[in-house]
């Protein structure tokens, strides 16, 4: 079979195409489409969604009324379905959601470098800075979707099992179901602050290491390291400035009156982790040799 039509081509190949730089939004959209097309993407989302389901099924099958635990939401599991997403955020926020965020953030540059597709797209009309921005945004979008996918499944399953009822917050105040739903949404949104900083670290490691596994493991490793440091007696002084300590910043939203201080604190602490990571990743990406693939 012949491979290329050399003689019967209908039109001249040569033309007068002018240089047009694509919008960064276009590059970002294609980064999302690439994510959507990969099975790995659904692994993380699947994990984020299946754990709330398992939780609800197991709790529904339990006959013991004492649900135990010191957390006020744990004692309300069967009273209001809205307790479930709060508990799930509590459980998933420490390890699972950072891991899911790292899965994509750590892979998003390194995989393309390894596969050689980075050189393919860098020889088009897109600038390196645009591409890095689009990839970082796509990684953060994925982390955001994972958080809200877990929250939606947890809320839906909890409400289906135990009803859309009022819920008691940490301060002992009973809030209506609709207000409780709003607080669940706000809590998850607030948790995104530290999680996006984790994703930023993932993007940096992905850019620097050029190795997906190293970047993913490295990102998770950093969060575990920070978590352990936070548990070491004698280091209480630095604990407020550890990234992992910001995972619970949303607790202030579940008090009456709302305590905004943890959120404001986490915003600047997380910025200290995330912004330099992104700047460093950007500078490395601009200057690096692309020789993979």
């Amino acid at each position, binding site marked *: *079979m*012949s*491979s*290329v*039509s*050399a*003689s019967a*081509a*209908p*039109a*001249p*190949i*040569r*033309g*007068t*195409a*002018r*240089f*047009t*730089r*694509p919008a960064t939004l*276009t*590059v970002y*959209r*294609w980064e999302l*489409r*690439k994510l959507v*097309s*990969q*099975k790995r993407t659904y692994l993380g989302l699947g994990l984020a969604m299946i754990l709330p389901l398992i939780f609800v099924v197991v709790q529904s099958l339990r006959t013991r009324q004492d649900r135990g635990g010191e957390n006020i939401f744990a004692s309300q599991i069967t009273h209001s379905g809205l307790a479930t997403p709060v508990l799930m955020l509590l459980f998933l926020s420490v390890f699972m959601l950072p891991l899911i965020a790292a899965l994509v953030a750590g892979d998003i540059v390194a995989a393309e470098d390894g*596969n*050689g*597709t980075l*050189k*393919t*797209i*860098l*020889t*088009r*009309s*897109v*600038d*390196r800075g645009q591409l890095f921005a689009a990839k970082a945004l796509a990684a953060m979008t994925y982390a955001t979707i994972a958080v809200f996918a877990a929250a939606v499944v947890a809320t839906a399953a909890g409400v289906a099992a135990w009803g859309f009822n009022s819920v008691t917050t940490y301060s002992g105040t009973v809030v209506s179901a609709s207000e409780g739903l709003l607080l669940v949404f706000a809590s998850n949104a607030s948790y995104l602050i530290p999680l996006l900083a984790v994703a930023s670290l993932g993007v940096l490691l992905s850019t620097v290491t050029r190795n997906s596994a190293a970047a993913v493991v490295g990102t998770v490793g950093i969060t575990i390291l920070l978590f352990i440091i936070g548990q070491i007696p004698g280091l209480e002084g630095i604990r407020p400035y550890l990234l992992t300590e910001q995972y619970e910043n949303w607790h202030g939203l579940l008090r009456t009156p709302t305590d905004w201080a943890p959120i404001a604190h986490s915003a600047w602490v997380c910025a200290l982790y995330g912004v330099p990571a992104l700047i460093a990743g950007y500078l490395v990406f601009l*200057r690096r*040799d*692309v*020789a993979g*693939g």
Partner: protein
Amino acid sequence: MLGTRATEDAAGGGEVPPVRARGLVKRYKEVLAVDHVDLNVQTGDVYGFLGPNGAGKTTTLRMALGLITPTEDIVELFGRDPMREGAHALEGVAGFVEAPRFYPYLTGRKNLELLAALDGADAKERIDEVLELVELAPRAAHRVGGFSHGMRQRLGIAAALLRRPRLLILDEPATGLDPAGMRDMRALIRRLADEGITVLLSSHQLPEVQDLCDRVAIVDRGRVVYEGALADLRRQGGAGYRLRTTDDVRALQIAREQRGIDFAAAGEHGLAFQAEEADVGGLSLALGAAGIGVLALTPELATLEDLFFRLTENDGAGEAEQPPPALAAPPTADERLVKAP
């Protein structure tokens, strides 16, 4: 200024070469991958870029496309430096380095749609056209992960043509193609060149380069050992002759002693040597005087393959900058093996 030159070119006010490098260097710690390479690809050239594996070809092409940073000097594409001007310097430039790479989980068409989106302009409208051109339209809806190597090569050509390039940089485009595919690839490159597209072709297929290219650069150990017109190179290779006699062993001895006879070598098919026409007459007289009959004496122009090996299999090649060393004319590989010192 680079920008000024590019503007002049766009306005037709100056002839800015599609590729220009002077003293290009790339060093990886102790390894000098590219050693002061000069390139000068002119508009309309089909420019062959040759060299053994590890000679620095791909590294040079990567620098040309702005993928890696030169240690010294710059490459200019139509007067623009990709390292300084980024994607803008690649205006009118397309191609691939090493094997073209695509997203295996996307279809061929989706891959082209992605690249067209990154190109802007009217690239998206040309997808069907380029798929037809490389005869991948029937497989466009299949994932690239299932494509053969040859199909990926063809998709690479399609992706390059989406950009309506004025300069096409192709790194081993015929690799992985079957003989018919290689023939058609050559025909396509020739057709693109006929349409005025400048082609920079890196290839191991020496007959392909000899067939397609008008100018070549041959690199060895990171250095250019020849750059210029292919016709000049072959001329510098000297007029070669093949000789069959009634006694080749004695004839070789006489040839080596004869003034004006260079690089005499014996092979399975007689002798090969290089000489001016007048000196060939002297040799035939000497052979006759020695009682050796001449069965056949045929002139042969050195092939690109001969010249390539002579330029790149020299142990001291690292010292051989232009002009090329004296070029002998051993016509076959066998003869190279038995070539006299």
